[in-house]
């Protein structure tokens, strides 16, 4: 765990445990109890087979976060109105007593479905606060659970209707075998969607792959790696993919043998029994089905903004340069009908026969098909009800009216409205959710959500809505075990680098004390310390993984890599031997047509085959007459969602600015560096404009994650995209449509003059 280098510096091996697409080795250099420097993976050999797990700017700047003067230091209780941000210091004793009282009362009065642990990813360790609170509440009688994520809910829901699983991703090491890589809304250079993902793309390029980026933005990844940037209007990816399918079919470039062998519902000859004619994918694409509209490149250029000749070129290149990888990021699925592009992409991968082969890519969700087992803290929630993570505002207002039609799982109908919220290390209560103004009003009503507990490092926008606000420890101050969530065959041990400061506490410590107040100490702890639990996780892991090191060795090295001879190829088994390895779908095939979706009987919004559905507040919405610009909130390198928004080093590396194209700025007389007001019917944001050729005309962006900071008139002064987003769940996943917003922009001085 420790090795002493020159001088008296001790180096502690750890990793970031906050939510991040990457998971890297972080080494804290500690001197006199303080971290004096942070380095990353710079000692292990940096090989092709196992590139070092190098941290990005975010963890490297952690000192400026760890020692930030605004850190929450003591437990506090609210003294002002909810959301006002006025608090008073109290003791842990009082804080936990109050939480225990409300928990007892609400459990007794309303039952477990009134207690909600909101979506929170600020601590993604195996022993985070969230884990312990789940364990405690499960023992106390249960809690209302959620499913899905704000990142990927639509593709998580939709991809299994095609493949039967979300694990449609091969290993990134395999990209060197691709002749062509198409990145649709995928920007790993900034999102760090997997440590080294952008680096693997560079290696693929060096091996000869052509890289095309389809994105409203000329992304950091595109600038560094793309041979071609194709700007596309947000929410229209399915239109582009439909038109590519049209070109491929009409030019007879599809892999017909693949389609006939592995797929259901591509054409009329391969449909499930009992479905009326004209409902196959091919009929939809050619316009011979119900809508009688051929999905030609000319049809698609109207919505996508992509010239038809480029659509034709792209379709031909993808069909003729096999193997090719059409890789979809999560951005394109965070919109009104975000379920569709995931299935449209998978359809194209199937038509070109790029599934299950080296250098191909099955598209869709793309979670790694190779997984390893790592043990977890046991949680056995007796309450079976779960809602989509995005549905909680409705569950607060009218939970008892919500049932299966609204995506409730586990029960037919909810038995209670949400009354108690635990928001532990998360900012989805306000900031990362939709419609901050509307949500603030909802949360402000103490008759609805009666009690809100928040734990965090800072007074974030969500923390302002706490009734009791608790100061959490951070990743340099605790031990834990973390896994990469997106890609990588490894697991990391986090060693504690420095002591916890002030009255900040580890989740296990204070939730154990809460367990005592609920008379569950023995059941909750099983007599174990936190270290015992970490040993338990390692023991569980070792049972399934021969060769996994002892607790001591794992802790000492800080990392364990699983060894494999070859990169994993998603659906390789199915393609090599379908009879013995059917796809995990009802038909055992790749389902262009899903009978399960057909049976939902919501064809306009949840079609049985992937379709382009024009989004409300998309490029074809008549509301563009009033609000002509599509506003998205792209991820930038400087934050993980809302984390690190308050880190000055990050502001210096990349200031929070509003992206507007040179074209749209000129029309409005906006100059680079000027203050502008971005607005729609839901809110107003004031931000400095970055006038740039790196975003397409008609589209603007407020980089997501800025902390909502309304002034007295409610005008956001920091640039929280969700001041402008609409609260409207998507039809299948009940997910967040974050990139579906129409806005107008004006120079601030002009607006003030008009007042």
């Amino acid at each position, binding site marked *: 765990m420790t090795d002493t280098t020159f001088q008296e510096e001790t180096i502690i091996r750890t990793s970031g445990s906050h939510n991040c697409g990457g998971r890297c080795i972080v080494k804290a250099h500690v001197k006199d109890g303080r971290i004096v420097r942070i*380095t990353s993976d710079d000692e292990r050999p940096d090989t092709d087979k196992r590139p070092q797990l190098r941290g990005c*700017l975010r963890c490297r700047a952690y000192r400026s976060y760890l020692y930030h003067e605004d850190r929450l230091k003591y437990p506090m209780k609210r003294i002002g109105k909810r959301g006002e941000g006025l608090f008073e210091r109290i003791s842990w004793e009082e804080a936990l007593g109050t939480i225990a009282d409300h928990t007892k009362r609400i459990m007794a009065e309303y039952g477990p479905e009134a207690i909600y642990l909101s979506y929170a990813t600020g601590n993604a360790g195996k022993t985070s606060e969230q884990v312990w609170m789940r364990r405690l509440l499960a023992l106390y009688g249960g809690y209302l659970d959620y499913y899905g994520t704000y990142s990927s809910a639509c593709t998580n829901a939709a991809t299994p209707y095609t493949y039967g699983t979300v694990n449609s991703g091969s290993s990134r090491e395999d990209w060197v075998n691709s002749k062509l890589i198409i990145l649709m809304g995928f920007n790993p250079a900034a999102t760090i969607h997997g440590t*080294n993902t952008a680096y693997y793309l560079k290696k693929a*390029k060096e091996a000869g792959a052509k890289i095309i980026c389809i994105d409203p933005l000329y992304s*950091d990844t595109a600038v560094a790696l793309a041979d071609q*940037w194709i700007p596309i209007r947000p929410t229209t990816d399915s239109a582009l993919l439909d038109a590519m399918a049209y070109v491929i079919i009409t030019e007879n470039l599809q892999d017909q043998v693949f389609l006939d062998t592995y797929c259901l519902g591509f054409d009329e000859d391969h449909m499930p029994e009992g479905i009326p004619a004209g409902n196959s994918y091919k009929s939809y694409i050619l316009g011979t089905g119900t809508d009688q509209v051929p999905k030609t490149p000319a049809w698609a250029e109207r919505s996508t903004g992509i010239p038809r000749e480029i659509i034709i070129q792209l379709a031909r290149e993808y069909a003729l340069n096999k193997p090719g990888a059409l890789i979809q990021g999560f951005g394109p699925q965070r919109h009104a009908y975000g379920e569709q592009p995931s299935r449209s992409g998978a359809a194209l991968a199937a038509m070109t026969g790029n599934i299950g082969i080296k250098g191909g890519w099955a598209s869709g969700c793309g979670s790694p098909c190779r997984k390893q087992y790592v043990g977890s803290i046991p949680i056995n929630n007796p309450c079976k009800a779960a809602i989509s993570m995005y549905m909680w505002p409705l569950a607060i207002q009218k939970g008892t009216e919500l049932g299966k039609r609204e995506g409730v799982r586990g029960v037919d109908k909810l038995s209670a409205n949400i009354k108690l919220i635990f928001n532990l290390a998360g900012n989805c209560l306000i900031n990362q959710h939709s419609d901050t103004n509307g949500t603030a009003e909802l949360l402000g009503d103490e008759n609805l959500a009666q009690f809100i507990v928040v734990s965090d490092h800072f007074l974030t926008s969500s923390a302002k809505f706490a009734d009791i606000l608790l100061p959490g420890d951070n990743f340099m101050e605790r031990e834990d075990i973390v896994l990469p969530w997106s890609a990588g065959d490894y697991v990391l041990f986090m060693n504690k680098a420095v002591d916890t400061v002030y009255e900040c506490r580890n989740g296990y410590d204070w939730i154990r004390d809460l367990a005592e107040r609920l008379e569950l100490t023995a059941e909750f702890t099983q007599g174990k310390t936190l270290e015992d639990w970490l040993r338990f996780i390692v023991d569980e892991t070792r049972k399934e993984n021969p060769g996994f090191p002892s607790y001591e060795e794992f802790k000492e090295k800080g990392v364990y890599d699983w060894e494999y001879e070859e990169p994993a190829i998603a659906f390789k088994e199915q393609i090599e031997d379908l009879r013995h390895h059917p796809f995990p779908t009802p038909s055992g095939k790749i389902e262009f047509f899903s009978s399960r979706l057909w049976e939902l009987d919501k064809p306009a919004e949840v079609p049985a085959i992937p379709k382009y559905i024009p989004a409300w507040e998309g490029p074809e919405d008549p509301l563009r007459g009033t609000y002509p610009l599509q506003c998205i909130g792209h991820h930038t*390198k400087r934050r993980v969602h809302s984390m690190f928004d308050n880190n000055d080093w990050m502001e210096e590396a990349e200031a929070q600015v509003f992206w507007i194209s*040179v074209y749209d700025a000129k029309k409005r007389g906006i100059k680079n560096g000027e203050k502008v007001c971005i607005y729609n019917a839901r809110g107003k944001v004031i931000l400095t404009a970055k006038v740039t050729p790196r975003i397409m005309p008609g589209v603007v962006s407020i980089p997501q994650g800025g902390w909502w900071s309304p002034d007295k008139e409610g005008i956001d002064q920091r640039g929280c995209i969700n001041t402008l987003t609409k609260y409207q769940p998507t039809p299948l996943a009940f997910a967040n449509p974050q990139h579906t917003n129409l806005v107008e922009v004006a120079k601030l001085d002009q607006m003030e003059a008009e007042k």
Partner: protein
Amino acid sequence: MSKQIAFYVEQKHCTGCSACQIACKDKHNLPLGQNFRQIHAYEGGDFTISGNVVYQNTYAYWIPVSCNHCVDASCIAVCPSKAIFKRQEDGLVLINEKSCIGCRRCFAVCPYQAPQFDAANGKMKKCDFCQDLLQQGTAPACVSACPMRVLGYGELSELQKKYGDTSWVKGLPNTAKIKPAWVLVPHRDAVDV
């Protein structure tokens, strides 16, 4: 030719991620406003709109820039207190803090804005190639931090043999006279084809 240590920048694949800038800032404990390595961003081009469709001729690229320990460094020539010197054994351009009077002439003359004024002690500071790390046989902080592996270092003549002798791309000031000790593999948009 005497020894000259130099940086290598595979600029064409730089994602502008700023890990180098932050690693350097952290290593050298630099306050806000000071960065010995900085990411310079360049972008341009425009759009043409025809009916519903958009054509672009956008270009963009980054150059991660620090002191380039120039062979004929202009900062040395202008320093009135002879605080800046070129070290014989490796060609590093270093500042003797004791002699520095903080007049900032080196800053004014440097095409890369490499020397930076430290308000805390009234002296100039800049990249020293992490000479403490070099002594231990490890790479400078920025180099080992680069997630894209586009930063490297080595003996200038060897780097030139391997990667060519480009030391200038579009956007940078003309530096032919001072012979900066770095080798660039340019971004497609940063050179005239």
